[in-house]
């Protein structure tokens, strides 16, 4: 356990971007709150205050989450490769740490630790921005940002997304680790070429697109399985703004689809493939010392 903590700490030393990128986003967003023209902002009395507040929290969270997905992908692709490229793998392997522990520490960093850092950064940013905006903007805007139940919902949403995306993207993460442990150069190219080659080959020789649709589902299909599109009547609040009927969700709870996510075979086949690929990555880490 102690070793695991040191390994994660090591990742923070090596990859300062883990905290520097979210810190930079936070600074930019706080600057916008400080100097943006929000003092002119006002909301029509027709717009529900909760819809405005929820929209604000989701926008801040989504910004962090989008950057997080890109950074985690890059991190997984680079983490094992970097040790071989600079030959420091020879130093790490002189210590009594198994290759399994090493690979698992990288996986846990990418799927849990880094998302938690972004989660904390998103919360702090939203809190700071809400405070600044409350001071600067009109009371209707400021008041809309402080619905305690919306804040709680956002915390649950983050945790829910971290856990379900970790499970859903496990095969992608496993594949990236295999490339990172295996490639002699150009990890980016190696991460993209084999899947593209496979789906093109399938299309030319078999005329089908099973692989393409599987990869597509794995990369883009996440929200569809983890969330409900339309949880039904009780979940929406309808308002009329300038003769348009606007539906806003009353709360986030009805949109979670945890049952569905955990009961679809796709989740578990993906997890099994992911575990298989992670075992491969550990084997490659054991056998491939240098480039």
């Amino acid at each position, binding site marked *: 356990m102690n070793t695991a903590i040191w390994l994660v700490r090591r990742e923070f030393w090596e990859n300062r971007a883990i905290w520097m990128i979210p810190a930079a986003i936070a600074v930019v967003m706080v600057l916008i709150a400080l100097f943006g023209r929000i003092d002119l902002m006002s909301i029509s009395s027709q717009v529900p205050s909760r819809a405005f507040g929820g929209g604000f929290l989701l926008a801040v969270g989504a910004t962090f989450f989008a950057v997080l997905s890109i950074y985690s992908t890059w991190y997984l692709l680079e983490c094992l490769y970097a040790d071989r490229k600079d030959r420091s793998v020879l130093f790490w392997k*002189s210590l009594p740490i198994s290759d399994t522990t090493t690979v698992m520490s990288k996986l846990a960093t990418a799927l849990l630790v880094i998302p938690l850092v972004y989660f904390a950064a998103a919360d702090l940013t939203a809190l700071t921005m809400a405070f600044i905006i409350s001071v600067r903007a009109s009371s209707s805007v400021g008041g809309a940002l402080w619905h305690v139940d919306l804040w709680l919902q956002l915390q649950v949403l983050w945790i829910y997304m971290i856990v379900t995306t970790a499970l859903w993207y496990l095969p992608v993460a496993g594949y990236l680790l295999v490339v990172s442990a295996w490639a002699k150069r150009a990890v980016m190219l190696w991460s993209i070429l084999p899947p593209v080659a496979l789906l093109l080959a399938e299309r030319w020789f078999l005329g089908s697109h099973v692989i393409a649709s599987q990869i597509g589902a794995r990369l883009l299909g996440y929200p569809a399985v983890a969330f409900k599109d339309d949880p039904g009547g009780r979940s929406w609040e309808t308002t009329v703004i300038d003769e348009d009927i606007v539906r806003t969700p009353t709360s986030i709870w009805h949109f979670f689809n945890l049952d569905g996510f955990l009961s679809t075979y796709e989740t578990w086949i993906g997890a099994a493939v992911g575990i298989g690929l992670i075992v491969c990555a550990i084997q490659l880490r054991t056998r491939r010392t240098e480039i």
Partner: protein
Amino acid sequence: MSALIEARDLTKRYGAHVALDRANFSVEPGRIVGLIGPNGAGKTTALRAILGLTAYEGELKVLDREPFRERTELMRDASFIADVAVLPAWLRVDHAIDFVAGVHPRFRRDRAVALLAKTQITGERRIRELSKGMKTQVHLALTMAIDAKLLVLDEPTLGLDILARRAFYDALVNDYMDETRTILITTHQVEEVENLLTDVLFINKGRIVLDSSLDDIATRYAAVAVAGESLEAARAERPFHERPMLGKVVLYYEQPNFEKLAALGEVHTLSVADLFVAKLSGGAA
């Protein structure tokens, strides 16, 4: 006590290339062994096998463990510097000490700190900011602070100047070495380690061509320089190598008849470097 390292028919192939060809050798505890061979002889491959960094064929036991299968356990009792400049560039010196102290049960922090205090290196510097010699000093401090039964060094002083090299070997022998430890070392600078080694292993083309203690080299091998008229008589004593020198011919013998040689010319013992050259240059010309 059983051997610390025991290799039987140790073989490693890279495709068609055979880097280690049924090598047999053993290393006893408490020794300082030099693994010596020309470039491409299989030195590095042998070390990698011993340290569990590569799979191999044949039998290999290090501290009663199979290195490749049990690397993690082996690394609690063995430490190594497999190459120069392999510390990651982004690592800070104090973090390096913290990390090894955190994960290694046999690491003695005070010792590493004391070793670094003798250098110009401060804790907050990153490896990338250090000169090649300083990088080596950091790595050596980290490695020598581990209470290991076996220390493996592959060209440990490459890139160091003569003062730093001498200081390193002095520290190795005086501060680090004791009867509980064993050191396996490879180097190109045979002359430099000759007086600290207790044993040598010569390796050539993947095979061990000599496995001897230094004491045995003195009693087992001899060379004699003879002038033209004695050459036939000297050759009759079956030298394994000869080379011309200043108008004479130096002939090298294994287990010679010392009385007969003394009658031919001045007999002298062989240095490790002499023996290495003689053994690897092949038979009598």
